[in-house]
C-alpha cells in the first residue's frame, strides 16, 4: 500500500488509520489527502471520515452492515481496494486559504503579555510572529468548528493554563502548547488567550456549517480600531 498507514480498531464500529504518532505537517498532509480521496465516493455505510493530526478514523453504520459476517472486515476490504490505487498523495489535498482578522491584546487577549514574557519577546514581536506564519487546520475537535492549527513559530509555544477559564469568549484566539486555535463558541477553555476575531467559525444553520475545514490553511491579520460586535 503506497500510502503507508497501520490499521487499528477503534471499538466495534470504527477503524483508525495510523500514519504516525507525531504532530508534523507532512504526516498531517497525508492524512488530509487520504481523507479527501476516500470522501469522494463514500459508501452509505461509511458515516464519518474523521481526520486528526496523524490518524484518520472511518466510522461505520453497524446496522447498514448488519448483513456482513464481520462489519469491520468488510471495511478493511473496501479500504484495501480503494487504497490499492494511486490515492492519498499530499498534492491531492484540497484546502482553501483563509485570512482571519484578529484584535490582539487588551481585554480580548488577556494572556498576550504573559505569552510574550514566556517567549522572551515583546508583545509587538509576538503579534508579528503570530501573524507571519501560514497555519494548517490539522483537525477540528474539542468543540464544533474548533480548529487545531499547526505551523506556529515554536518560540511562541506555551503550556495551557493550570486552571482553565470557565468563560472564554467566542472568537478567542489562543495558544495551547505548540498549537494555536480559535474558540468558536463561548465556554470553558484552558488555552492562553492572545486575541479575538469577529469571524463566525461555526453556525449549524449555515452551509457549510464550519468556516474552516480540515486541511485548509489560515493566516491571521492584525486588526486595529473599534471593537466589533460581541457575540
Amino acid at each position: 500500500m503506497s500510502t503507508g498507514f497501520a490499521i487499528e480498531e477503534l471499538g466495534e464500529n470504527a477503524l483508525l488509520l495510523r500514519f504516525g504518532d507525531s504532530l508534523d505537517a507532512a504526516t498531517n498532509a497525508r492524512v488530509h489527502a487520504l481523507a479527501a480521496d476516500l470522501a469522494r465516493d463514500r459508501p452509505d455505510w461509511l458515516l464519518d471520515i474523521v481526520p486528526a493530526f496523524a490518524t484518520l478514523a472511518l466510522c461505520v453504520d453497524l446496522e447498514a452492515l448488519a448483513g456482513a459476517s464481520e462489519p469491520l472486515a468488510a471495511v478493511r476490504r473496501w479500504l484495501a481496494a480503494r487504497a490499492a490505487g494511486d490515492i492519498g498523495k499530499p498534492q491531492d489535498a484540497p484546502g482553501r486559504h483563509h485570512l482571519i482578522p484578529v484584535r490582539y491584546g487588551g481585554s480580548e487577549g488577556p494572556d498576550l503579555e504573559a505569552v510574550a514574557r514566556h517567549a522572551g519577546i515583546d508583545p509587538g514581536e509576538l503579534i508579528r510572529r503570530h501573524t507571519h506564519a501560514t497555519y494548517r487546520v490539522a483537525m477540528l475537535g474539542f468543540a464544533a468548528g474548533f480548529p487545531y492549527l499547526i505551523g506556529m513559530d515554536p518560540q511562541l509555544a506555551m503550556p495551557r493554563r493550570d486552571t482553565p477559564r470557565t468563560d472564554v469568549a467566542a472568537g478567542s484566539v489562543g495558544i495551547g502548547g505548540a498549537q494555536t486555535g480559535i474558540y468558536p463558541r463561548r465556554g470553558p477553555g484552558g488555552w492562553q488567550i492572545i486575541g479575538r476575531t469577529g469571524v463566525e467559525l461555526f453556525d449549524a444553520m449555515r452551509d457549510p456549517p464550519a468556516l474552516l475545514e480540515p486541511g485548509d490553511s489560515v493566516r491571521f491579520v492584525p486588526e486595529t480600531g473599534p471593537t466589533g460586535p460581541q457575540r
Partner: protein
Amino acid sequence: MSVLVISAGLQTTIQDRGRFGYRHLGVGSAGVLDPFSSLIANRLVGNADGAAVIEICLGGPTLQFTEAARIALCGAQIEASANDRELPGWRRVDLAEGSVLKLGACRRGARAYLAVAGGFDIAPVLGSRSTDLRGGFGGLDGRALAAGDVLAIKASDHRLQNRFEVDRRWIDPAPDLDFIQPTEVRVLAGRDALRESQQLHAGEWQIDAASNRQGLRLQGPRLALADPGERVSEPVMPGTLQLPPDGQPILLLADAQTHGGYPRIAHAIAADLPRLAQLRPGDCLRLLPCTRADAQRLLDDRRQRLARMAIAIDQVPARSELR
C-alpha cells in the same frame, strides 16, 4: 396538535438516532443514549424508527396535550400519571385531548423515553433533530426543554378515539434491560494497555455524580498505564473508555467530543450502550472483557429480538383501532 411543557424536569431533551457525517468538523453525534428503549417506544406508537422522542433524565416533565394522542413510555421505570391515573411503561397509551401527563422520578434506571404518534415536528439541523447541548443547536434551539415551550406534533396515521386507554399488552425489555445491580457491561480491549490488565475487570466501578450525556465518570481502583507517555489527540467514539491522569476512567457517551488526547483503555460494546444509559450516580458497574465475535453475536441477538417484537407489535392492533 401540540404539547405544552408545564414543567421541564431535570434535563429533558429532544433526541433521535443522532447526527452523522459531521465528526470531521468537531460535531459529535448526540442522539438517544438508550437506542433500544427509544426504538421500542417509537414502534409502539407506529412511528418510524428514526422519529424524534423526548429523553427524560432522572426527573420528568409535566406535559399537556392539546388533542388526543397516542404515546408510549419506555426505558427507566418512571413515575407517570395522566390526569392522576397511573401509567405503566412499555405499552401503548391513548390520551384524551387536554390530558396532563405528569412524569416524576425515575425509580430504576436513569433515562426514560416518550414517543408520541406522528413524531415531533422539529426541523432537522445538520440532518438530525437531536439536541446538541454542547454545541447549542438541534432539537429545541440546542437546549433542554423549559416551562412554556410548545412542541408541535406531526399528524399521525392513526384515528384515535378521544379517550384514555391503556393497552393491556406490553413489551418485556429483559434481557436487554434488567436494571440488576451491579450492571454488567462488556468491553473490547483498547489501544493503551494497563500496567495490571485485570484491574479494569476485577472490581466494581461506581458512577460519579459529575456524569452526564458526554460521559460516565467511574470511581474505583486507581488505574495505571503500561506506557504513561503523552498522547497526540486522536478520534474517539461513544463507548470509548478514556483514562485521564487521575487514574479514574471516563466512559464516553453520545454527546462525547469527537477527539481526545487521553489514553483509550477499552471500548464498551454497542449492544450494551442501553445499559450504560440507565446508570444513575452511585450505581455500580462491572466491566467484563469481551471478544469482537461475542460483541457481534450479542448485537445480532438484539436485532432478532427487536424483529420479533416488531412483528408482535404490528399483529396486535390497539383496541381503539378495532372499534
